[in-house]
């Protein structure tokens, strides 16, 4: 099983592509740093008691007064920037993954229904998808976020905010998945086995699901990977705008927002390091997505 996977075209393509290897390595390093932040990070940025204003605005290594206990410096509260970044990545990646997962589930469901039902249902659902596609996802997410926040009682807002954000970003990403799944469903619907299943009284949608899913795995992986990049950017943007995650759960976007206040006073590292991390993370994901798209569909090169 493993050797077969190793020898497959995709794996071969992966092993021989320096870009794919480099971006995968980068993504893996960031993922490990994020996932094991509680064990790897030098400090716990969430532990307010350990913070000391005496340590505030320590510069990063390479500048005067820097030391190894805070390699990337500290912020205005004396929080270690490196640790804050590692914890922030956890939240950024978590929100990104869950949003894309949500979009995939919704997209597959709607795509299947549209392709299977056809007729007016199909037209209506795809029209909605079209209209939403012309609407930039950041705007959709912002409006959905704003509306739900307005509808929620004040006391619950902060606790539920992370789910609101996941929902808002996920909703802005579903149309791409739905279109792909619908296309594949349309192809499968007219095949003999679906007719046969119908004749013997098996619910044909169940059979179709098991036939459509393998067909769309490739495209869904590509759209999902590129979508993950978009989702992480969207979350960071919302958090930067101050309508994303609450300050108690600082993501990379939130960190950049905090640091933005100190640009002019010279403490650039509070913003720049979270920013670079965000760029590297999205770049690695986009490179992987681009590579995956080319590898799965050489014609597009």
């Amino acid at each position: 099983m493993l050797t077969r996977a190793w020898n497959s075209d995709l794996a071969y393509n992966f092993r021989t592509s320096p870009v794919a290897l480099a971006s995968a390595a980068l993504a893996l390093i960031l993922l490990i740093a994020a996932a094991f932040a509680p064990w790897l990070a030098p400090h716990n940025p969430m532990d307010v008691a350990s913070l000391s204003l005496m340590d505030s605005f320590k510069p990063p290594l390479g500048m005067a007064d820097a030391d190894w206990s805070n390699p990337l410096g500290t912020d205005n509260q004396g929080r270690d920037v490196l640790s804050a970044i590692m914890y922030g990545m956890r939240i950024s990646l978590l929100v990104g993954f869950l949003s894309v997962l949500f979009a995939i589930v919704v997209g597959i469901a709607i795509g299947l229904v549209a392709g299977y039902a056809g007729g007016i249902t199909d037209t209506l659902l795809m029209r909605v998808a079209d209209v939403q596609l012309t609407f930039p996802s950041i705007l959709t997410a912002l409006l959905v976020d704003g509306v739900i926040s307005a509808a929620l009682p004040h006391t619950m807002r902060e606790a539920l905010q992370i789910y609101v954000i996941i929902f808002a970003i996920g909703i802005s990403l579903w149309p791409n998945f739905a279109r792909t799944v619908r296309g594949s469903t349309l192809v499968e619907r007219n095949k003999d086995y679906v007719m046969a299943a119908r004749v013997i009284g098996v619910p044909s949608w169940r059979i179709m699901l098991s036939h459509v899913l393998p067909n769309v795995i490739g495209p869904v992986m590509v759209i999902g990977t590129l979508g993950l990049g978009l989702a992480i950017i969207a979350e960071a943007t919302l958090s930067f705008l101050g309508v994303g995650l609450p300050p108690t759960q600082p993501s990379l976007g939130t960190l950049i927002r905090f640091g933005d206040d100190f640009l002019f006073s010279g403490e650039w590292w509070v913003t720049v390091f979270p920013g670079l991390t965000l760029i590297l993370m999205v770049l690695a994901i986009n490179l992987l997505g681009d590579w995956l798209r080319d590898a799965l569909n050489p014609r597009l090169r």
Partner: protein
Amino acid sequence: MFGFIGSRLLQAIPVLLVVGFIAFALFDYVGDPVSILAGQDATAAQRLALSHDLGLDQPFFVQYGRFLWAALHGNFGNSYRVAQPVANLLAERLPATLELAITASVLAFAIGVPMGVYTGIHRDSFLSRLMMAGSLIGVSLPTFLLGILLILAFSVGLGWLPSFGRGPVVHVGSWWTTGFTSWAGIRSLILPAITLGMFQMTLIMRLVRAEMLEVLRTDYIKFARARGLTDRSINFGHALKNTLVPVITIIGLQFGGIVAFSLVTETVFQWPGMGLLLVQSVAVADIPVMSAYLLLIALVFVMINLIVDLLYYAVDPRLRARR
């Protein structure tokens, strides 16, 4: 020709009605306007009276009709946050956003198209590879972060350009304001316009490149070469013109994107436009501003679609024949 425009306008009406409906549903059902306007300690009778004044006791479609009618007259009610008519707030900020968005689009188009043509023609050259690699970084770079980095470099570091605001503006006509009349105004525009245009520029470049590669493979380009036409005429005449149809679509759609992304750029640079207003409104759940913004954006999108259709019509003779 006029029939064509007419039919396009007719098609736009349902879209506007649907968006209007969403905006109305927001306006009416999210948050409780009565308790917001009447305050916490209003009596039940006061609430009922206010509800009657606002028309909230009317049947659903009557309310929707009233909302549309009011919206048609530019009346979106008052902002919860600053207690001013929403229409005035938006009109005050529209010129700033449009000036920024149009400058960014022109910038993205003027740089993105030639770069796309170049990378399409010289697909394997070093410069092309460099541009393609750069464009991937451009796509991966969140707009707000680009803005911050530009401020860090050109305002904080070098001190060349202002980092916030619109600079001095001059009133033109009854409500338009422009920053183009003074050097300080133009300087204020530079960083926000680059920030806003960068993403669109990389997108346009990649799109033009892909289309060029496609078109350069066609028989009519081979035939043009076989007739000994100059490279200049083939690349920038025959090929570029044929890539324009898909490019126009994307650029049209992208202008919508630019208007939307302007809210990010405006926040970074504290640019006094509609986007900044929206972000401030979302943060405090100021529903009237949000619904008016939604309607206005929908209107902008419909207008852009119409312009895109007209441009198609101008570029492609096959469309002219079919209608």
